[in-house]
């Protein structure tokens, strides 16, 4: 009881002869306040938006993102971000992000959910069949070994390594020539 009363800021205020605007009015929560990234782990990353390439520090704890901030050591951005970069935490956590594979059958009016494995199998099957149907080995007497009936259009937020694999598989493996990218749009 006494301790409860002694926690009453009014009592504290009178005892310390304060006007109630300072530290005496702070609640326990305020006193214990600290930045939520204090005990987080950090991954060093790069902003996914424009081509400036700002450094980002991605704070995470127990497999969950906590916050994304600029990396002060980046020689380009020196800890700063633009509004898009500053919103990249929301980019990864917002509620409209899709988390499930969705499939739409021919003439269907709705999506149906599908397992990742099954969808991959089906896509592989479609690629396989289309390629078989449309692959051209010779044209006008020269070997061309390509298909023009499967195309690819990639964004420019793909990693170099991803682009490398895409080009290697699609062009080097499948013989697709209709391969394009945001860089040419």
């Amino acid at each position, binding site marked *: 009881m006494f301790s409860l009363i002694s926690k009453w800021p009014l009592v504290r205020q009178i005892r310390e002869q304060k006007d109630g605007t300072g530290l005496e009015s702070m609640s326990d929560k305020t006193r214990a306040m600290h930045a939520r990234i204090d005990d987080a782990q950090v991954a060093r990353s790069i902003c996914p938006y424009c081509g400036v390439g700002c450094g980002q520090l991605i704070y995470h704890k127990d497999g969950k993102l906590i916050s994304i901030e600029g990396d*002060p050591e980046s020689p380009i951005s020196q800890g700063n971000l633009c509004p898009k970069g500053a919103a990249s935490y929301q980019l990864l956590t917002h509620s409209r992000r899709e988390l499930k594979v969705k499939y739409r059958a021919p003439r269907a009016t709705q999506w149906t959910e599908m397992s990742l494995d099954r969808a991959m199998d089906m896509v592989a099957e479609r690629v396989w069949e289309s390629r078989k149907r449309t692959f051209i080995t010779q044209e006008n007497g020269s070997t061309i070994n390509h298909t023009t009936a499967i195309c690819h259009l990639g964004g420019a937020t793909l990693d170099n390594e991803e682009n490398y694999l895409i080009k290697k598989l699609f062009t080097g493996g499948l013989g697709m020539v209709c391969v394009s990218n945001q860089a040419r749009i």
Partner: protein
Amino acid sequence: MSRSWKVRRSPATSFPVVCRAVLLFLIGLSNRRPNLVCRRIYTPNSHLPAHRMAEDFRAVTARRAKCGETMIGEGTQSTNQRRHNYVQENVEVGFFTGPTVCIGCKACEVACKEWNEVPDDGFTWIGNSYDNTGRLGASTWRHVLFLEQDCQKGNQITGLMGLSDAQSEDPFRWIFLSDVCKHCEEAGCLEACPTGSIVRTEVGSVFVQNDVCNGCGYCVVSCPFGVIDRRPQPLPDAGGAFKCTFCYDRQKSGLVPACAKVCPTESIVFGRLDDLRARASQRVEQLKQSGYEDAQLYDPQETSVRGIHAFFLILGEPEAYGLPPKPQVPTIYLKSAWTSALLTSIAALIAVLGAFLFFG
């Protein structure tokens, strides 16, 4: 150090309504005046230290910090990035925000909302320049102003302006400035708060304790800058009063407030209040020498507010930025209002007793 806050009245301008200056395109290339003489020559700031390429860049920046130049390029040494112990050492801190380097990107608005988990407050296209935020409020703790004015910005040449002899018929400037809670030396909201929810922290900032605030709304009408507001339903945490916290949680952990940390051109500068004030007055002098004749500090130290922790460099008059020219903390009215109330009370007691005495 001169307290350079002052009010000047601009002469009534008779410039015609100016082109929106956001010219999508030009056709019909008529009305061009040939043989214009180049009258105003841009002169670089000659007093700036000559930069030498090969020098270590930190050494250069350390030297530069002493003059009024901005902090861009200081990297981890910038007061916007480096860790500090201001809370533990009871150092007064502040924001110094200026429009001459602000690019209106609104990163401060977003970084503030991301860190403080402030909800969005509506998707309304206001059409005021590029500003769809409007004003500070319970869910907007940083607000970038987009100000269009029919006068020149420094020696800037916009189109034909600045080159012609007759000043120009079409002067135009677009100014960006990030507004924020001023964290007054004498804070109206702090004095008005009946619950002790609003407190003055170790670093001199004014902080609303969300767990204490019961949403009485008295701080809302007590702020001379119209900053604090009560968050309406159905937003999360509705009912409480909210405003900039100066990222008190970050500061307690030695981190810089989110808006200052993110600012790409370091238009928002965070640091020790005394350092900032010194830097700011130098900056004003520097700008005045380089053509910004109407540059002034907005830091009302002469009014009852007695100065603000988040102060601004502005071009032109404060009214255009929605800033009150002579903000007063409402507590200065206490004496007269209470005198009136007490005299009324005494008079009422006497009148009632008198009425019963004489008419009873």
